[in-house]
């Protein structure tokens, strides 16, 4: 581990920017030859941000569909709140903590995100192929995703107030730390364990759109939370067998998974960070192939193991494929992207069964989809792309997963000591909709399994 600190010096030099064109004013920029291209690039980042926003509706549908109808208001309330507090926290502190510019490579303090709207160095191609505002809104949508991943895994038993505090802290303060390690130009981006490139630069860690930085982060934070909470009441019989608690709406799960797939075109497509035709279309195709292959991997394995083709496993497989390809969507070959997806899909089935067996109760499979397949996707870059280093990928993904796990564990321990993290057994049985919110999602329907 002592070696890590030698990379810090490299991290700061890697941030030196190329000389950029200077404009006298924004109006002068609008009349420049690069303005049309900049407009297209910037628009694509904004469309992508909107697509990533749509993923929050996808998560909401997926999570409520896979849980009982008596907890639907609670699930939706959590998803609604995470987006809103996540974006505000990211504006107040997180964005600048994740992209601090020159820093020590491990930790930077954040600050209010806004800059001067008339600052041409931030609003033109002197900054990037998009404006500072576009940069913020795209990254803010990503940040909220990390906490949303946790909400599904802890569903149907976590105390709302404790979860909201946890989510605010996670998105605002913790996610930006690991994010800065790579995307902010920190120690992972200049990791030299795996050797040097032909130009003599460290190969570095590689995570295109966040298999580790977003998904493994969320998945392993969720694992710690699930360990602290324990399984839902009635999930295991006295002799330790699994007694499944049925999700209340498969059509909602389907809508959720497909909305997430759609949103992923922004998640990965936008991570090209420009509208570069070759780059974006390449990423669209690898992303799609991996999603389709993930479905096939999960369906095939679940059909073989369980004797029946399982819809929710197939949909988890799609998400697993998407998480898996996210780290290398722009560098992994077409045939390899299918392999990445197939393995992710098979992995998610095994992982869901495994976590059920060891009594880690995850109602929606978030730990498997985001945690396990996030690690897999990150490693896959080291396996399928010759220029990348497997060792770097391993170190990077484990460092992020371990950090997320430990911090989440500490947060949950603290919250448990201060205010408790789980609702009462009585409330859990009656449903969190009545217990936490005093209303019901479906007052006109009678639940068959209540």
């Amino acid at each position, binding site marked *: 581990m002592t070696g890590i600190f030698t990379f810090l010096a490299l991290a700061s030099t890697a941030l030196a920017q190329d000389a950029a064109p200077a404009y006298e004013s924004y109006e002068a920029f609008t009349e420049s030859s690069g303005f049309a291209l900049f407009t297209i690039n910037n628009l694509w980042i904004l469309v992508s941000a909107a697509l990533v926003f749509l993923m929050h509706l996808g998560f909401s549908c997926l999570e409520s569909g896979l849980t009982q109808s008596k907890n639907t208001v609670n699930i939706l309330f959590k998803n609604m709140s995470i987006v809103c507090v996540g974006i505000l926290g990211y504006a107040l502190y997180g964005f600048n903590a994740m992209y601090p510019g020159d820093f020590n490579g491990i930790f930077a303090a954040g600050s209010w995100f806004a800059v001067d709207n008339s600052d041409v160095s931030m609003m033109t191609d002197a900054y990037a192929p998009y404006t500072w505002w576009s940069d913020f809104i795209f990254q803010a949508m990503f940040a909220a995703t990390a906490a949303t991943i946790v909400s599904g895994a802890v569903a149907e038993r976590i105390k709302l107030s404790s979860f909201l505090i946890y989510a605010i802290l996670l998105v605002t303060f913790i996610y930006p730390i690991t994010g800065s390690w790579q995307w902010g130009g920190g120690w992972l981006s200049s990791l030299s364990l795996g050797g040097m490139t032909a130009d003599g630069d460290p190969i570095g860690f590689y995570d295109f759109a966040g298999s580790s930085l977003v998904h493994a982060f969320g998945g392993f934070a969720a694992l710690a939370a699930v360990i602290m909470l324990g399984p839902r009441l009635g999930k295991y019989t006295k002799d330790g067998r699994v007694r499944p608690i049925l999700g209340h709406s498969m059509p909602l799960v389907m809508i959720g998974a497909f909305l997430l797939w759609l949103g992923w075109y922004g998640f990965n497509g936008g991570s090209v960070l420009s509208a570069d035709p070759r780059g974006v279309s390449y990423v669209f195709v690898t992303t799609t192939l991996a999603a389709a292959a993930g479905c096939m991997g999960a369906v095939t394995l679940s059909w073989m193991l369980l004797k029946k083709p*399982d819809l929710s496993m197939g949909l988890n497989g799609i998400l697993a494929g998407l998480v898996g390809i996210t780290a290398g969507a722009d560098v992994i070959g077409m045939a390899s992207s299918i392999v990445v997806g197939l393995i992710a899909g098979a992995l998610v089935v095994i992982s869901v069964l495994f976590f059920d067996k060891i009594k880690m109760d995850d109602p929606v499979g978030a730990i498997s989809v985001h945690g396990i397949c996030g690690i897999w996707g990150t490693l896959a870059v080291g396996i399928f792309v010759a220029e990348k280093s497997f060792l770097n990928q391993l170190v990077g993904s484990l460092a992020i997963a371990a950090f997320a796990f430990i911090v989440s564990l500490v947060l949950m321990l603290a919250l448990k000591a201060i205010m408790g993290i789980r609702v009462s057994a009585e409330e859990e049985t009656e449903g969190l909709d009545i217990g936490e919110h005093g209303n019901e999602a479906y007052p006109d329907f009678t639940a068959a399994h209540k």
Partner: protein
Amino acid sequence: MKLITAIIKPFKLEEVKQALSEIGVEGMTVTEVKGFGRQKGHTEIYRGSEYTVDFLPKVKLDIALPDELIAKAVDAIENAAKTGKIGDGKILVSPIDEVIRIRTGERGDTAV
């Protein structure tokens, strides 16, 4: 006057209703119910874990009839609801003390 309570497989409801109409039965009350007898439950699978569904969905018919129609009605239900497989259900016949038509206040056989 007797009350016929028949518990049948849900998909047989339409055939049973037809058969009863043909012998002149003019009304019935239908309830969706759950239960088990010798059929026991069946196993289902959710995300890789098997579980037993003990209570299977059935349909319950309640029909109050004058004595002379009882035998024909029981035959009609029996023939229409029968598949020969386990879980076809039961027909119960029990006496009724009184029947009152609320609208007119009629009592006894004319109210059935």
